[in-house]
């Protein structure tokens, strides 16, 4: 890497009354690829000081007018993030030590060893970069998991928010229930981010995607050689979640053996890796989610009752989107604001017809489907306002009926295709994959009219 290619140059200000010191230091730093400038006294230094302008300030302890100690305090007041390194003659080391107590990063004694100076500056730069990356990442994580990301003003959602606030600070096991796409993982992350475990990881396991054989190794890891293909020792998800939260999505899908293993680890908080005999203790909080009716599964004998009660300590049910239609405009505008910038399009809103259609649709895929629909609409929209034709929703004037029986759905679907095809019976029958006679019978049966 070459410093010339760095997008942001590190800036250094040298404050010293000796011209030769100022010149030789700034020259040294410029050759090292830093942006450097100097000031002969406190007045000149203060003139050149602006918050965030200088990353590192070398400050001579003995300056005419105002001494370095006093200037250090003034600099800290203007720019608390600037790293101050005191420059001192051998005789003033005591003062330099005092300045360290006042918040200086370090001090150098004139003349300084070039190797020492180079390493000191490199270390400050490294530390500052790590700090800024750390702050940036924390902000991103905060933004990612903030409860504000879960949008809703519907009373059912307000109740969910209340439950999150109540349960988050505790270590209680939480069961999140809701249809696919309702945002169960977002709720789990919100609980984690509001808990004291937020600086430790939240590990997600999608139990729906695990086969019976894989679950144990996925949960608890394995030792090298534990089974064919186990070429290395691998940590399991419970071990990775130590100190943090483990989120078991679609927990209702795990098999009988995994249910027993899970029950044991919840009770003992320890386990052994597959193929190992060493007990590993872990400290985790458990959050589960399911879209299955687990009570029914218990009755049917496919899910252990004791495990169910262990998981269902504190339950949060997320309503499907069709039961909180009043949130749809709010969600649409939220997704529009969030996505339009990243897609680089200036879309201002939705036409009233488009919004009516969005509110009328039954959203079987819930908020996830709505988000995808808005994203697609932003991409295809040619005007500044999203219109009906931009929406990827099949025409369904009456929406989906509350009666979701097969017959009711068939009636709505046939009517929808008939309208799309302009009541052309031949084309409609082709699309539906039935013959014309059958279509006529169904039109008659459901009393469909143009």
């Amino acid at each position, binding site marked *: 890497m070459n410093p010339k290619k760095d997008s942001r140059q590190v800036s250094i200000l040298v404050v010293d009354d000796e011209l030769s010191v100022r*010149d030789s230091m700034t*020259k040294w730093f410029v050759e090292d690829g830093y942006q450097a400038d100097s000031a002969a006294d406190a007045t000149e230094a203060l003139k050149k000081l602006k918050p965030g302008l200088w990353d590192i300030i070398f400050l001579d302890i003995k300056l005419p007018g105002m001494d370095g100690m006093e200037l250090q305090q003034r600099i800290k007041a203007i720019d608390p993030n600037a790293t101050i390194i005191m420059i001192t003659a051998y005789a003033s080391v005591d003062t330099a030590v005092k300045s360290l107590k006042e918040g200086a990063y370090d001090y150098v004694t004139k*003349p300084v060893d070039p190797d020492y100076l180079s390493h000191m500056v490199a270390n400050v730069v490294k530390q500052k970069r790590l700090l800024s990356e750390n702050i940036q990442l924390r902000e991103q994580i905060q933004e990612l998991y903030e409860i504000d990301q879960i949008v809703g003003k519907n009373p059912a959602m307000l109740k969910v928010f209340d439950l999150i606030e109540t349960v988050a600070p505790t270590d209680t096991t939480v069961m999140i229930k809701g249809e696919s796409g309702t945002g169960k993982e977002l709720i789990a992350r919100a609980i984690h981010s509001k808990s004291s475990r937020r600086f430790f990881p939240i590990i997600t396991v999608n139990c729906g995607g695990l086969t019976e054989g894989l679950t144990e190794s996925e949960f608890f890891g394995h030792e090298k050689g534990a089974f064919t293909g186990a070429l290395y020792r691998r940590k399991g998800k419970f071990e990775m979640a130590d100190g943090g939260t483990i989120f078991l999505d679609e927990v209702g899908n795990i098999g009988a053996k995994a249910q027993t293993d899970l029950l044991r680890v919840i009770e003992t908080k320890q386990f052994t890796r597959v193929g190992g005999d060493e007990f590993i203790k872990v400290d985790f909080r458990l959050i589960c989610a399911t879209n299955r009716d687990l009570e029914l599964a218990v009755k049917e004998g496919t899910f252990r009752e004791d495990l169910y009660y262990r998981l269902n300590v504190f339950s949060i049910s997320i309503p499907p989107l069709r039961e909180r239609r009043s949130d749809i405009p709010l969600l649409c505008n939220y997704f529009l604001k969030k996505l339009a910038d990243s897609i680089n399009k200036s879309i201002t809103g939705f036409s009233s017809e488009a919004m009516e259609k969005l509110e009328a649709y039954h959203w079987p895929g819930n908020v996830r489907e709505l988000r995808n629909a808005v994203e697609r609409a932003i991409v295809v929209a040619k005007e500044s306002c999203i219109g009906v034709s931009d929406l990827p929703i099949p025409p369904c004037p009456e929406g989906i009926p509350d009666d979701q029986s097969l017959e009711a759905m068939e009636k709505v679907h046939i009517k929808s295709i008939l309208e799309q095809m302009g009541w052309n019976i031949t084309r409609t029958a082709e699309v539906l994959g039935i013959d014309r006679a059958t279509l006529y019978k169904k039109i008659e049966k459901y009393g469909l009219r143009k």
Partner: protein
Amino acid sequence: MRIYILPIEFTDKNLLSSLLAALRDAFGLPVMILNRSFSLEGGRDPIRNQYNSTWILSRILEIAPDEDCKILGVAAVDLYVPVLTYVFGEAQLTGKAAVVSTYRLRDELYGLPKNPEKLKERLEKEAIHELGHTFGIIHCREPECIMYSTTYAEEIDFKSKNFCRVCSALLEENKKKS
């Protein structure tokens, strides 16, 4: 454009002739010895018993030929700049003058046996490095590049005599400009 080597109270003819060839290879420019008398006395700090390299640069500029050239002073004394305990050399960034010294490049200074071959290599590398600055190239983060900053003698041995791809391109670009 040519490069002059200015011996500053420096008498080792073998080192000068090998340096001449190395600079010619590195920069692809004609390199010549500049015979001018140069006394170091005014640049000596009696307390530190060292020689101010910035002062040497200003003296080099005073006696420099009035033409498009780079001048590398070669000395054998201990060099310093006021804020640092020592330097191996100094150069004007995008300027005309540079200086290097063999004083801290010698193994015997660190209690090791004399190693003339190593001294020759180190001098050539430091000379190319300082002249690189006169062509406007700053320190490079590529450890093998000649423009990598080195602050102790053994570190010089780790880098090559060559410019990395980026510094090499910069050198060619800046050679055309001057």
